């Protein structure tokens, strides 16, 4: 049998069966599919889908699911307001420049006055979201230096941001300011496919002393650690924070209005019922997005001109204040999943909000094993595997029952049972995959702090696998391969009868 002649015959037989397979043989052979083969096929398909990210589809699905979750589920119904009550944004916008008749850029002394006005309210901390890089001559620079001293004296933490990727080797912060010893932090915001969905855990150190691992915390994490570290110990961030964007605008923002698609001026608090929200989002998610920021915001002209206003007092007292700009010329705007374009300062504010709301345990994009981050794709494949095992087992048992049924006498059943209950049970259990995957995902969120974007593909892939199992793909592949390999449908063995070829049968 192992002579070259026999080997050649076997090969030509296999090629012939591959080209012109016999349907009835394959139908019989597919019922003999082993459990391990079903598991292997499904694992291969899931791995391909998750690892290869065909056409970027997987990434898009993950991030879009996260956006939809923020917009329709988490943001409006589940995200807490603890952080919202502790964070504010003091903004310099076009109206501020117009009201104060002060064109941009401001003198250092103008910033010093704003900072001093904020200091009167004894905030928890103030973060300046402006870069002071240019060494322009300004005799009021010493006022800003003096203001840093006032903050220090009042024990109110003050943070400056350092310039990054500066083209001419400029200092990240003017030396006159940096020499005061004020903390300088990296303000980078990672943009995921054009939208601010994540937040860095680490950044450049500038004047900070690196930690044990040689890195320095990003802006939000540094401020949180300094202000809330004793109250809420900060969890180790394995790679990046996944931002959860709130949608319920802070009540203090009653002075801001929005314009809807029809040009109507509406309050930022115009409520939308659950059904309407979902109905509108079904056709166009932008219909339920709001330009109103979630974080409480007040213009700095209000602090200077109306310092005793109750809203200003509420927003500035005992809160972490981000002092930033919303200026047309500044180009510091970022898309968010729930607002479209917002000034970049709100991304830092939202990161701080997340850290406070989740008590230092924000959602993450990676889990760690033994202190090392685990690849997200590997986590998703591992999360899909139990679903594959269960799906395969149920499917394989069904096939085995069918095979036994074909060989032995049929059990007597009523027509109702045969055509309604049995068929229903036979098909419906595939949807179990969805439930299983959702359960695995929620488990990952609860136990490992992974965000929905990092496990939602498990759900989609599981549904896809269930559909493939429903149409019998793994057993069809087995039937075909077994047939090509010369499997004998008659005796159930895989022994290859050498002469059993299409050509041979024709003879």
């Amino acid at each position: 049998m192992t002579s070259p002649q026999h080997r050649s015959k076997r090969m030509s037989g296999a090629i012939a069966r591959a080209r012109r397979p016999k349907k009835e043989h394959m139908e019989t052979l597919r019922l003999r599919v082993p459990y391990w083969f079903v598991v292997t096929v499904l694992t291969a398909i899931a791995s391909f889908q998750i690892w290869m990210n065909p056409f970027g589809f997987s990434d898009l699905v993950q991030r879009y699911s996260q956006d939809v979750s923020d917009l329709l589920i988490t943001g409006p119904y589940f995200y807490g307001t603890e952080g919202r009550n502790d964070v504010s944004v003091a903004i310099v916008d076009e109206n501020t420049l117009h009201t104060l008749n002060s064109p941009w850029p401001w003198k250092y002394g103008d910033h010093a006055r704003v900072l001093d006005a904020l200091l009167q309210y004894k905030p928890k901390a103030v973060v300046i979201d402006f870069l002071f890089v240019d060494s322009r001559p300004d005799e009021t620079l010493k006022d800003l230096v003096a203001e840093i001293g006032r903050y220090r004296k009042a024990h109110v933490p003050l943070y400056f941001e350092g310039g990054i990727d500066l083209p001419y080797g400029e200092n990240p912060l003017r030396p006159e300011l940096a020499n005061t010893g004020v903390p300088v932090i990296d303000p980078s915001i990672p943009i995921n496919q054009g939208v601010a969905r994540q937040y860095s855990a680490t950044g450049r150190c500038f004047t900070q002393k690196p930690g044990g691992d040689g890195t320095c915390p990003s802006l939000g994490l540094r401020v949180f650690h300094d202000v809330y570290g004793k109250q809420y110990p900060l969890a180790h961030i394995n790679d990046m924070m996944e931002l959860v964007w709130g949608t319920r605008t802070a009540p203090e923002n009653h002075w801001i209005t929005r314009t809807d698609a029809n040009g109507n001026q509406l309050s930022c608090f115009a409520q939308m019922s659950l059904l309407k929200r979902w109905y509108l989002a079904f056709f166009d998610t932008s219909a339920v997005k709001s330009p109103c920021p979630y974080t409480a915001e007040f213009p700095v002209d209000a602090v200077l001109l109306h310092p005793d206003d109750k809203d200003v007092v509420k927003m500035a007292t005992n809160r972490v204040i981000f002092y930033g700009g919303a200026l047309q010329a500044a180009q510091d705007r970022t898309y968010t999943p729930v607002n479209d374009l917002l000034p970049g300062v709100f991304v830092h504010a939202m990161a701080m909000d997340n850290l406070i709301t989740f008590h230092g345990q924000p959602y993450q994009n990676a889990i760690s094993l033994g202190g090392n981050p685990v690849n997200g794709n590997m986590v998703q494949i591992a999360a899909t595997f139990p679903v594959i095992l269960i799906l395969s087992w149920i499917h394989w048992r069904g096939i085995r029952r069918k095979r036994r049924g074909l060989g032995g006498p049929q059990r007597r059943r009523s027509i109702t049972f045969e055509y309604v209950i049995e068929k229903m049970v036979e098909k419906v259990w595939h949807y179990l995959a969805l439930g299983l995957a959702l359960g695995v995902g929620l488990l990952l969120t609860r136990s490992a702090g992974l965000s929905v974007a990092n496990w939602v593909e498990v759900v989609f892939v599981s549904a896809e696998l269930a559909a493939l199992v429903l149409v019998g793909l793994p057993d069809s592949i087995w039937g075909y391969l077994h047939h090509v390999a010369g499997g004998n449908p008659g005796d159930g063995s895989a022994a290859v009868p050498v002469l059993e070829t299409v050509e041979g049968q024709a003879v």
Partner: protein
Amino acid sequence: MRVGVGLYAGMALLAFAHSALAADEACAGATGDVVLQARTPEVDLYDGPSGKKVMTVVQAKFPSCAPITGRASNFMLQVSMNGAKYWVPPYMVKYRFSGKLPAVCRNLAMGSNEQKVGSTRGLGEGCPKTGGSH
């Protein structure tokens, strides 16, 4: 405990209101725009509306009922002190204006359309009303 906290808060509020009212009453004779008293523990004095800081005085040494001799477009207030003229930021003092302060609103905001004269106004006050629920 809560009653005690409430009592202290009420007393503090009364003391604050009394101080503000007292300052206003004390300057009842002064006409026109007047700086009633210092609002912050220290008051910075500037050499111009957009100038540099030349001096800082403590609250107790800042004059009361000082007439406002000039108002800059950025709302810095000019006052006389020891025979010299200085500019002070508006948030550092309590003042009384005969005119109106600009409304603080963005786009078309919620709130009352009533204009209050001679007093500071809140965010959203003086802005046109809009549709939609609040």
